[in-house]
């Protein structure tokens, strides 16, 4: 059974299910209620579930993310929507210093079963302050789990296991994916939040990516086929803890890897993946590891410069051709 939907609707349905299934679940964030969500994910939920469970917050990221942590500590299952990753920096202290640490600092006495959702990424000419990709920063922190649903199935299926998880989960939704249409396959209810997924099987080079870059990478793989390069595409899905096994298995087969990451190259998640490959698959490699990341510049406003700053299909194709010598 599959049906046509969008990434946004898939997320909304996931919220609806969660709110129906468990009275402890509630959603809070800026403009999630009357406005319908700044990306319209929560549109209609206020009418259906009421103001106690769909809570509009003041512009107080630090306080409402912290309050979500406190409410989770108190036994509820909050979903906190931070409008975008850019504003999550205002709540970073609570996420890193409280949500991520409390279980350990308390010697395992306390859990924070919290889901924090936020939009991420560039590509809409929103300039430097609204175009960040800090998934890698969050993935740096022990105590957090970090998810990047890139497909409609994951948009539909990741929320329930994230809410069921006893630890804080940060879920990144790339802004360019909300309008994506596609078929929702029937197996979404079995979605896990542990493993990476091979989205396209191939034999000559592993293209490793996540989130909004997945679709550029799949386009690149199609182009590469025309050049005689058989590329495998790995969607990381879970950025912490990383499913290193799936990555290694792919690279041991293809012997080449290109990592595509919208974060800046320096200190990026792509750097972490390359380091793991260098540590654990060094003798399996037939070519230097390669990365396609954002240029080291605050993301500029004009379209031609923004495009030049971000990973693009052509850059991925070029990197993979270089790695394969084709």
């Amino acid at each position, binding site marked *: 059974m599959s049906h046509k939907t969008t990434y946004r609707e898939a997320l909304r349905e996931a919220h609806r299910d969660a709110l129906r299934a468990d009275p402890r679940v*509630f959603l809070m964030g800026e403009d999630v209620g009357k406005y319908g969500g700044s990306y319209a994910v929560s549109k209609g939920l206020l009418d259906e579930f009421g103001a*106690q469970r769909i*809570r509009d*917050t*003041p512009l*107080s990221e*630090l*306080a*409402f*993310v*912290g*309050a*979500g*942590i*406190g*409410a*989770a*500590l*108190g*036994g*509820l299952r*909050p979903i906190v929507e931070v409008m975008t990753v850019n504003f999550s920096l205002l709540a970073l*202290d*609570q996420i890193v*210093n*409280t949500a991520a640490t*409390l*279980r*350990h*600092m*308390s*010697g*395992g*006495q*306390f*859990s924070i079963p919290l889901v924090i959702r936020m939009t991420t990424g560039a590509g809409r000419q929103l300039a430097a302050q609204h175009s960040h990709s800090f998934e890698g920063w969050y993935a740096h922190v*022990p*105590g957090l*789990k970090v998810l990047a649903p890139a497909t409609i199935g994951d948009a539909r299926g990741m929320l329930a296991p994230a809410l069921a*998880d*006893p*630890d804080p989960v940060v879920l990144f939704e790339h802004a360019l994916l909300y309008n994506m249409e596609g078929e929702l396959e029937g197996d979404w209810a079995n979605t896990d939040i542990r493993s990476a997924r091979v989205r396209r099987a191939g034999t000559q080079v592993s293209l490793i990516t996540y989130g909004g870059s997945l679709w550029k990478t799949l386009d690149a793989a199609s182009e590469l086929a025309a050049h005689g390069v058989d590329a495998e595409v790995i969607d990381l899905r879970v950025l912490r803890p990383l499913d290193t096994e799936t990555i290694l298995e792919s690279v041991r087969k293809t012997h080449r890897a290109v990592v595509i990451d919208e974060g800046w190259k320096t200190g990026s998640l792509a750097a972490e993946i390359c380091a793991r490959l260098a540590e654990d698959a060094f003798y399996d490699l037939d070519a230097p590891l390669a990365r396609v990341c954002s240029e080291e510049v605050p993301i500029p406003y004009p379209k031609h410069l923004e495009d030049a700053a971000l990973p693009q299909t052509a850059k991925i194709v070029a990197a993979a051709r270089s790695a394969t010598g084709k």
Partner: protein
Amino acid sequence: MSDPASFKAVTLPRDLTIKLLTDMVRIRRFEEACAELYGEGKIRGFLHLYIGEEAVAVGAIHALTAQDAIVATYREHGHALTRGITANAIMAEMYGKHSGCSRGRGGSMHLFDAATRFYGGNAIVGGGLPLATGLALSEKLTQKQTVTACFFGEGAMAEGAFHESLNLAALWQLPVAFFCENNLYAMGTALARSESQTDLCAKAAAYKLPTQRVDGMDVIAVHEAAQTACAAVRKTGGPFFVEFQTYRFRAHSMFDAELYRTKAEVEEWKKRGPIHDLSGRLKAQGLLGEDEFLAIDGAARREVEAAIAFAEASPWEPVETLTHDVYATP
């Protein structure tokens, strides 16, 4: 002895009064021992002593029920002891031992105890306020009639977390008792050197919280103010702000040379020491004999000695468990 004209008779029930005195003495003796143990290298990391401020935690926490929740700061040994976490478990935590109240993972600044609803122990100034606000939200949404008591220093009132949390708690009418321990110095920075508005109640009132200012050196006054605050929170379901005016007799931490205040100022405040104040009043009223006070003090000293022995004898956690309790499942 106090000036008869300003003498404040103690009218609370004697049992409660003795309990308040006893807990203040317990904290004092416990922390004096901690300072010595720090010198011996038994306790490491940061150690922030509460000596001088005991009346605040003791008076306020005795106004709470067992169902209420507490969020405290990194200067929280006194709160933990008063709440009923054993001296053994706290001392073992200071040592970093597995038998500590946070299994040794937190240390002095991160005392936790689920059984008494003691939610730490937060070493980020202001970090506990959003957490307390969220705890209160969960209590409200699940129709519990509890109070979340949130302790913080006046230094935290310069943080955005204070303003955001008070706004949210007042806007959503959440049952938080915001207990400000104003000891006049944010580490070494005096209130007037860091705040444009030094009337702390005015800050809270700006968010429409009811407020009260009270002498934090007088444990009876603290207790009565906390009772008023908690009763109001229970009745209205909304927050309340109390400023306890207090003073830290010791340095901010064990690394503080105290260049920012005069010895004369410290000595002046010490004359108003909360233990001295209460025991003096009780003796003047004939409610406490010197022998009784010595018995309280002796019991506190023995409790601390036993706690040190317990901590010394407790085993270290094996290093193989290093990465435990990062996630629910490894």
